[in-house]
């Protein structure tokens, strides 16, 4: 479980996060949604420590991340996995080497054990062995995202963070990535936080949804509640996609 309390973050004189307080539960896919520039990426990067918050506290299972020393943070980070927007795979390494990298850095496993683990994780994200020796530039965007997920889970993390995992992907591949993240979250009992503005993801895997608007918490709920939420800004965001407006209208008509 991850808990954030009254997080405030400014860049120069612009306050981007204006006191966010919430909890992200274990075994659930927690989604942070909002328009571009609403502060969701800053919130995610603040939670993982890529941005230092100006005020507020972040707890990882009651361990205060904001007050940790660098060494303690490094240790905690070995319990985290993160999938970046562009995949952030290392260009100089092959697919298999990218996934093996965290093990090379932090475990004393034998080469065979590492090889088996790499094969397992890549199989888990449906990457065929023929692709193991390819470089990231030689595989598609969807495959890069899946390799990034494999790398993120290779050390069995307790916490998984995904920054816009579907950006630049077609709707079909996006669905594959979404269900993959959701299944892994449940199977490995991770606390997963996903930053997205993809409404399809919201409706597919949003166990808990946090809507951020102009750096403030706009709404909290689940995918079953979001179509009926009484929040003007959230409605503007959700029903910008006509499909969901029609879905809501149909439900109202049917009285469900």
């Amino acid at each position, binding site marked *: 479980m991850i808990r954030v309390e009254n997080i405030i973050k400014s860049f120069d004189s612009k306050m981007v996060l204006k006191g966010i307080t919430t909890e992200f539960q274990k075994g659930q896919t927690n989604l942070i949604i909002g328009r571009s520039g609403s502060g969701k990426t800053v919130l995610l*990067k603040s939670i993982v420590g890529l941005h230092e918050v100006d005020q507020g506290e972040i707890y990882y299972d009651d361990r205060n991340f904001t007050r940790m020393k660098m060494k303690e943070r490094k240790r*905690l980070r070995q319990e985290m996995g993160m999938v970046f927007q562009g995949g952030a795979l290392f260009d100089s390494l092959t697919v298999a080497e990218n996934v093996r990298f*965290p093990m090379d850095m932090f475990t004393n496993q034998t080469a065979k054990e590492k090889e088996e683990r790499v094969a397992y994780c890549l199989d888990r994200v449906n990457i065929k062995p023929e692709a193991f020796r390819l470089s990231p530039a030689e595989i598609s965007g969807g495959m890069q995202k899946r390799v990034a997920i494999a790398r993120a889970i290779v050390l069995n993390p307790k916490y998984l963070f995904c920054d816009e995992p579907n950006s630049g992907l077609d709707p079909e591949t996006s669905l594959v990535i979404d269900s993959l993240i959701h299944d892994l979250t449940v199977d490995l009992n991770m606390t997963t936080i996903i930053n997205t503005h993809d409404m399809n993801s919201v409706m597919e895997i949003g166990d808990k949804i946090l809507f951020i608007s102009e750096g403030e918490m706009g709404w909290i709920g689940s995918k079953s509640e979001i179509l009926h939420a009484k929040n003007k800004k959230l409605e503007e965001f959700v029903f910008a996609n006509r499909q969901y407006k029609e879905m809501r209208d149909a439900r109202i008509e049917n009285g469900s």
Partner: protein
Amino acid sequence: MHFFYHAGRYFSLLTKVFSKPERHKVYVKRLFSEIDALGVNTVGLVVIISIFMGGIITLQVAYNMQNPFLPSYLIGLGNRDTLILEFSSTILGLILAGKIGSNITSEIGSMRVTEQIDSLEIMGVNPASYLILPKIVAVVFIFPFLYVISVFFGLIGGLLVGPGVGAITAAEYLNGVQYLFNPHYVGFSMVKSLVFGFLVSSIPAYFGYFVEGGAFEVGAASTRAVVTTNILILIWDLILTQLLM
């Protein structure tokens, strides 16, 4: 103020670079690959430049010494001392700041803008140390070798061109190359090449590490890194010459 801001951030980065590595084995592997990428792959360029510059220096000295009272073996001596004292250390440093320096800035800068450095940080790896330390060690290690190679091929260039155009005989040239040799010059230039190696690797790494934006900014950072490295090489050349000669 701008200077102090960059100086402070540069030294703060260096403290991270020289902190204890997470896994020595991985760093050693990276060190060898950097020696290959940044050092061994540079040897060809150094050889070509040095042969031509050795030949050109020999010709320049010969054209400016057409005085019957000056012994012609001084042409070989002039080429040798120019190579040992300035060309193979300072001028080569300036040239390699362009090749190696821009390579380092663009590689690290691209990793920054594609979030690969953030990715290392999230894994609990010290990105400054993991990415920059092997590069600095590799370049500082390889620079004295490149210096020796440059002097050697510069002298060969003089030997090919001087007698080739009839400016000096091979025997006179070789006599001049050995005449009044001062080993201290080599030691002095070795020290310079170590310092220049450090500058050529650490300054571009700094510019790459803190780049913000996209491809355009990475290109601009590369240019800034090369210019800054060149200026610092000249400043340190002046300081070291005053201190060590």
